[in-house]
C-alpha cells in the first residue's frame, strides 16, 4: 500500500471474563476505502467497533488513527479526532423531535472547531442533514418525537447524527439490519455519496449482497479472529469462510 493507513488495529485482544471476544485482531484501512466486516453472530464484530470507538477498553493491543495511538481513549475524545459510529441498537433521544436530536452532534466541540463557532441557524442545518438521509422536507416527519418514529427513520437518524459530526472515518454497525429491501436501496446512494466526499467507511453487515456491491474489501471474523481478508469474491471463495460463516447458517 502506498499511503500509510488511516486506522491500524494491531494484536487487539478483549476478554469478557473467560470469553475471548476479540483474539489477536489485526487489520488496517487506508483513506477513502470502504471496508466491510462480516462474520457469524457472536464473532466479535460489534465488540471490534466498541473497541475502536472507545466504548470498551481493550485487554491488549493497539489502535492507532493517523499514526496516533488512541488505545483506551474515552469515546468523546475519539469522536473529536474524526471517528464517528452508529449503533446497531439505535440510540436516539426519544423525548426530542428528530431535528432536535441533531442539535446534540451539532453542538459537539468537533463541529464547532470545523465550522469555526456555532452554526447561525442550527435547526436549518439539522433539517438539511436529515433531508440528506431521507427525511422528506415537505413532510412533518423531522418534527416528530423520536419515540414515535419507525425503525427505518431511526436508522436514518442514527446515520445523520454520525454525518453531522463531519467525520473522516465512519463506522456503520449493522445499519441495514431490520430494514426492508427498499429502505436499504434508498440508503445505499447516501453511503456512495459519502464515499465520493472522500470519507473512509467501515461497515459491519449481515446483509452480504448489499454490502458486497459497495465494499472495496471485506474482512471476515470468526470467534474474534480474522479468518479472511480481500475482495468480496476472494473472501467468499475462501473455504474457511464457507465453513465458518455460510456453513453455520
Amino acid at each position: 500500500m502506498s499511503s500509510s493507513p488511516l486506522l491500524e488495529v494491531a494484536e487487539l485482544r478483549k476478554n469478557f471474563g473467560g470469553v475471548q471476544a476479540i483474539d489477536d485482531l489485526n487489520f488496517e484501512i487506508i483513506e477513502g476505502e470502504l471496508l466491510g466486516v462480516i462474520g457469524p453472530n457472536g464473532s466479535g464484530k460489534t465488540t471490534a467497533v466498541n473497541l475502536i470507538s472507545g466504548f470498551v477498553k481493550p485487554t491488549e493491543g493497539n489502535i492507532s488513527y493517523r499514526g496516533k495511538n488512541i488505545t483506551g481513549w474515552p469515546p468523546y475524545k475519539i469522536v473529536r479526532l474524526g471517528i464517528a459510529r452508529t449503533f446497531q441498537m439505535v440510540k436516539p433521544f426519544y423525548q426530542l423531535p428528530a431535528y432536535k436530536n441533531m442539535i446534540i452532534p451539532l453542538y459537539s466541540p468537533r463541529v464547532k472547531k470545523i465550522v469555526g463557532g456555532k452554526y447561525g441557524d442550527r435547526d436549518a442545518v439539522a433539517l438539511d442533514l436529515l433531508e440528506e438521509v431521507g427525511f422528506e422536507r415537505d413532510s412533518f416527519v423531522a418534527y416528530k418525537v423520536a419515540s414515535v418514529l419507525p425503525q427505518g427513520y431511526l436508522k436514518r437518524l442514527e446515520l445523520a447524527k454520525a454525518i453531522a459530526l463531519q467525520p473522516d472515518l465512519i463506522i456503520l454497525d449493522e445499519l441495514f439490519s431490520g430494514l426492508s429491501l427498499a429502505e436499504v436501496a434508498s440508503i445505499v446512494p447516501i453511503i456512495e455519496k459519502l464515499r465520493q466526499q472522500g470519507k473512509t467507511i467501515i461497515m459491519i453487515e449481515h446483509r452480504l449482497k448489499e454490502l458486497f456491491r459497495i465494499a472495496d474489501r471485506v474482512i471476515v471474523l470468526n470467534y474474534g479472529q480474522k479468518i479472511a481478508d480481500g475482495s468480496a469474491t476472494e473472501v467468499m471463495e475462501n473455504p474457511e469462510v464457507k465453513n465458518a460463516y455460510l456453513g453455520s447458517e
Partner: protein
Amino acid sequence: MRNAESNSKSFKKRRKERIDRGIKARSSDIFALSSWREMLYLTAPRLIPIVGLLVLSVVLSHYWQRVLLSVSVFALLAISWDILAQSGMVSLGQALFFGTGAYLAGNMNHYFGWSPYITIPLATIFGGLLSTLFLLPVLRLRGIYFSMVTLVLPLMLVRIIEATRIFGGTEGLSGLGALPNRWVEVYLIIAALLASLFGFRRLMNSDFGLVLKAINDNDRSVMNAGINIYWFKTQALFIAAAIGAFAGAFMTHVYMFVGMPVFALDYSILPIAAAVVGGMGTLAGSMLGAFILVPLSELLRGLGGLRIVFYGLFLVVFTVAIPEGIFHYIQRKYHQFERWVEVER
C-alpha cells in the same frame, strides 16, 4: 380572526378556537402578537409567580411569612432536585447540599464573624463546590446506584459531626448573625426563588440544557457526539448543589442556628414529593409542588399525630389523580383555552 366586524353583515356562525392559535407560529420561539389580550395570554403565566409572591409577602401574617420562607426554601430544593433529575441524576440527598451550605455559612459567621451578606454568597459557591467534590467519585454511577450514594452521604456527615464533635457537635452553633429584619429575609428569598425559576428554566431550554436532557435520555449517544458527559454532569451537579447550599445558608441565618437537623431526611424527601406532585421537568412544577405541600403540612399541624396520615393520603390521591403533576395538567388546560369566534364566510 379579527375581521369579524367587516363580515358583520354576513350570516353569523360561531365556532370555538384555541386562544393560542394566532399566537403560536410554527417555530417555538417566534410569536406573532397582535393584541393586548394575546400579550396577556403569554405573560400571565410568568406574571402569576412574580405578582403572587409579592402580594403574599405583604398580606401574610408574621407567622405565615415565616412559613413562606420555609416554602421558598423547599421550592429551591425542589428546583435543584428537578435540574439533577432532568440531567439523569436522581438524587435522594438534597439534604447534602442544604446541610453543607448551612454549616459553611454557620461556621464562617461563628468563627470569623462574617456578616450574612458575605457568608451566604460564599456558602453558596463553596457549598456547591464541596458537594460536587463529594459526589464527583460517583458521577459515573447511573440510576439507583447514584441515588443510594446521595442518600447515604448526608447521613454519614451527621455521624461524623456527632462523633468528632466538630462544628458544635450535637449542640450545633447558635447565636449566629441574623439578617437585619424580616422584610430583608422575605425579599431576599423571593428574589432568589424567582431568579432561580426563570434563570434555570431558560438554562434548561438552552443548548446546554438540551445536552443535559439528552444525557438523561441516552448518555452513550451523547458521548458518541464527542461530548464529555461527565463535565456536563459536573456542571449540572454544581448548579443544583449551589441552589441547595444557598437555601441552607439562608436558613442558617434565619434560624440564627445551625446543627445536625440540617442534614435531616426532610430536606431530601420533601423536594422530591414536591417535584412529583407539582410535575417534573419544568422547574415551575417543582416550585408549585412546594407551595402546595409545605403550607398543607402547616395547616395539618392541628391534627397532631394524624397529620402525617392525612398528609400521606393527600400525596397518594394527588399522584394517582394527576400522575403527570399539577403543573403539566394546568399547562395543558391553559393551552387548550378556547374562545368563540365568528366563522368567516
